[in-house]
């Protein structure tokens, strides 16, 4: 065997080795960690519309049908959620990764009060509809199509993360004088024993109607 053949085979072996390395490395990748909100995205004081942002007049109540968050490429239908036996908000079926839910016993998005929308950060197969919720920044737009044909446009006021045992019910679910919206998903770290350790909550208020 001449040196040229040997060299070609060595190159082939090297390339095969690199491909194998890449496959092993990417296949063994640990769980993807959903982005978490930075401290700068939290409210500086009590929740409310950001200073200087417009506050649109609330709409009449109408069923929401779809949510879009262009900044994080969310475009998903909405299902109606109730409460679990322990009073916590039910969640959409985890099987469908591209499905969010709204709390049907409360304020519909766009109406006066605090509307609540929840979506999975992931399911057994991988990232789900609100995977990137924690990467939203203040000022991002959230659009909700409603059954009355109108689209309620909300603007993010803050994104915060809370430990499960320190979830601020009043802050998140409490009443609002405006048409407010809360987007909720899991976050705040993860362990195999306990699952997600907290929730990411994005606060928004109605700034426009189309």
């Amino acid at each position, binding site marked *: 065997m001449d040196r040229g053949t040997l060299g070609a085979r060595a190159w082939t072996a090297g390339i095969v080795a690199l491909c194998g390395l890449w496959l092993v490395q990417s*296949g063994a990748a640990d769980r993807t960690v959903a982005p978490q909100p930075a401290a700068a995205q939290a409210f500086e004081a009590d929740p409310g519309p950001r200073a200087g942002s417009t506050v649109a007049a609330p709409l009449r109540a109408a069923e929401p049908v779809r949510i879009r968050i262009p900044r994080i490429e969310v475009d998903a239908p909405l299902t109606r959620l109730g409460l679990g036996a322990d009073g916590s908000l039910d969640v959409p079926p985890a099987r469908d990764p591209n499905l969010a839910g709204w709390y049907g016993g409360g*304020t519909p998005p766009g109406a006066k*009060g*605090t509307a609540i929308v929840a979506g999975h950060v992931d399911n057994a197969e991988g990232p789900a509809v609100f995977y990137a919720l924690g990467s939203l920044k203040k000022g991002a737009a959230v659009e909700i199509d409603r059954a009355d044909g109108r689209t309620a446009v909300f603007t993010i006021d803050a994104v915060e993360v809370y430990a499960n045992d320190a979830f601020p019910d009043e802050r998140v679910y409490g009443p609002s004088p405006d048409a407010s919206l809360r987007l909720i998903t899991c976050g705040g770290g*993860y362990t195999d024993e306990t699952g997600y350790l907290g929730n990411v909550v994005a606060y928004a208020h109605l700034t426009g109607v189309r």
Partner: protein
Amino acid sequence: MRSPARLVTGTAAAALTAAALGLTTAPSAYADGLGRGPALTAATAAPDAGECLDSLTAEDAEAFCDDGAVLDEEAAAELAAGSSAWSGTGDEGDSPTGTNAGADLGANAGTSPGTNPGAKPGTRPLPVPPPGTDPEPGRPPSEPPVTRPAPTTPTDRPSGHVRTGVGGSAAPDTAQLAVGGGLLGAAAVGGVWLARRSRADGTRSA
């Protein structure tokens, strides 16, 4: 302080009245008042025992006065109020139910109010919430009045965190790992073989 006998008389009177009302009004009305009714009427009926109540209907008054039973106005008013409050709930039953319920009350009220097996907590219809607090979006749309209370009330809003993740994002891909491992192994074997060949060739040519 009244003698126990009179207390019992008053209690029995209240119980009988309740039984009669159970016959003539909605059983749900009776059942509704049961949780607290017997205790209250027992306490309030006793002081004024001895008079017949004017405000009762002729039949009611007859029924009780004939037996020597007496009823205090307050107790009657309470019972009446209790019955009217629930008479519109659409839960009207047939009279046999009322009779049974009344009999139960009469038997039990004197000794152990509230233990009547006919009174099952939670079986009565839920109170109708005050107007304006129902945030149901299904109702005809209307512009919310300025004074409307916040749609979410502490009783019907969620509490606690939300379980919106299972932590399954990108679990290890075993098939990909196997292929990658195979490629690595093949490359290693090939590399070793190539190295030995190379060394052998080098030795020979040198």
